[in-house]
């Protein structure tokens, strides 16, 4: 093995440690942390690590501060971005339930994310609450919105406007979610349930 290959293998192991183990309250590491630990070529190391992770159905995802991910990110944007490990393919429904999420909570999250996307990324909290209260009791709606904010799916400004936050950008394939939602056939409320 060449000296360079040995060096990159060592750096790749370090990158895996940084990404797997939770170091801060929020998961993942910032670009500048990776640069400090792995050197200037940290992007190359992340690419190599991605190749290895692919075999395990995992990948490193870059979550940018900006709402729309830049096509060609600058050095500065990359340094400010958060690098997280995510599953490469979606989880199964049973796995999702085993991870501590109730069906109601996931459905509420689905409605929340889809509705905010359709409203160009921001919505007054009261408006979202009214929509969720059609299906869930108000105490649960309130609890879930606070939970989504704590987990990083949403953020809220002083005026009570909700936005999609870093975790929603990292974990949810927004385009796919909308496509699936729009493609799903809805029944009219008067129509009987299929047997």
């Amino acid at each position, binding site marked *: 093995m060449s000296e360079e290959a040995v060096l990159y293998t060592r750096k790749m192991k370090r990158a895996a440690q940084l990404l797997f183990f939770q170091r801060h309250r929020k998961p993942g590491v910032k670009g500048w942390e990776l640069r400090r630990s792995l050197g200037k070529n940290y992007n190359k190391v992340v690419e190599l690590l991605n190749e290895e992770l692919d075999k395990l159905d995992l990948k490193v995802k870059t979550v940018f501060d900006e709402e729309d991910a830049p096509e060609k990110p600058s050095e500065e944007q990359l340094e400010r971005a958060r690098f997280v490990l995510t599953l490469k393919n979606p989880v199964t429904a049973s796995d999702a339930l085993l991870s501590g999420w109730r069906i109601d909570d996931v459905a509420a999250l689905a409605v929340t994310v889809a*509705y905010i996307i359709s409203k160009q990324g921001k919505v007054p909290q009261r408006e979202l609450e009214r*929509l969720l209260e059609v299906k869930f009791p108000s105490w649960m709606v309130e609890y879930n919105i606070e939970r989504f904010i704590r987990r990083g799916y949403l953020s809220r400004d002083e005026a009570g406007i909700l936005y999609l936050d870093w975790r929603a950008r990292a*974990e949810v394939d*927004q385009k*796919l979610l909308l496509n699936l939602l729009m493609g799903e056939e809805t029944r009219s409320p008067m129509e009987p349930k299929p047997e």
Partner: protein
Amino acid sequence: MRKERERLLQIIHLCSTIDKRGVDPFEVDVKQKLEALRKYLPDWESFGDLCLDAEALNKLSRVIELQGSWLKFRSSLLYVDPFLIEFKVKNLEVKTLFEIFVKAWKPIVEIEQLSPQRVMEAVDYWNKLPPIRQRLRRMPFPPGLRPGSLTLGDMLRQGFLSEHEFTEVLQTFWQELTQKAACQERIPYWSFIYAESYEETVARAYLTSFLITYGYATLEVEPLSEEKYLRPNKEIKPLPMTGRVVSVPISIEYRSWREAWEAKHLE
């Protein structure tokens, strides 16, 4: 000139609402608003008027920016009519919504685990840590400096509040309550404490609690509906020292205030 000034304020307010609420920015007829600004400009004389004009122009330029991003978003692949989404989520079953989300959800992977090295460090730390009693003896609490809470009396004594002023404020507040409740003898709690801003409402609720504690008014709670009412006392009735005195915690939630505000303004 007053009418023109009002018009500028209306434009500023409209643009701010569009920006904050995420409403369709094309609701604003920018061309017409700019023409109005141009028409008024030669008549402005004071510095304040010119600042107002500049602010209106600035807000309109923000609306144009929003119109740009609105068009960009509408032409993007992510655009779906919010009403359509609303219709869909209202008519889909919870289980279907769950299944849809799971297909588009790739959760973050993280490990919370101690390494053997960290365990060794922790054991070492534990072994070296002296018992808490020994540590406390080394750093005894200076007497009289334990954390506590200030009462109103303490604040008055230390000069943070003036008794005279506070009593005066309470008296004025008592008069206001008496006047407002004059016809019905008692007044709903919320309608008395409600003010145009949330901060003021909280301040009024705080003062009201003193009115009740000091015997200027009585708080009545309807047993079934739990509606709360304030009945002003004709003279100060100090709380009885014997018998049952109940504290009633009342939460002044921002949402409740907002609903009251919206209800009032919709009227």
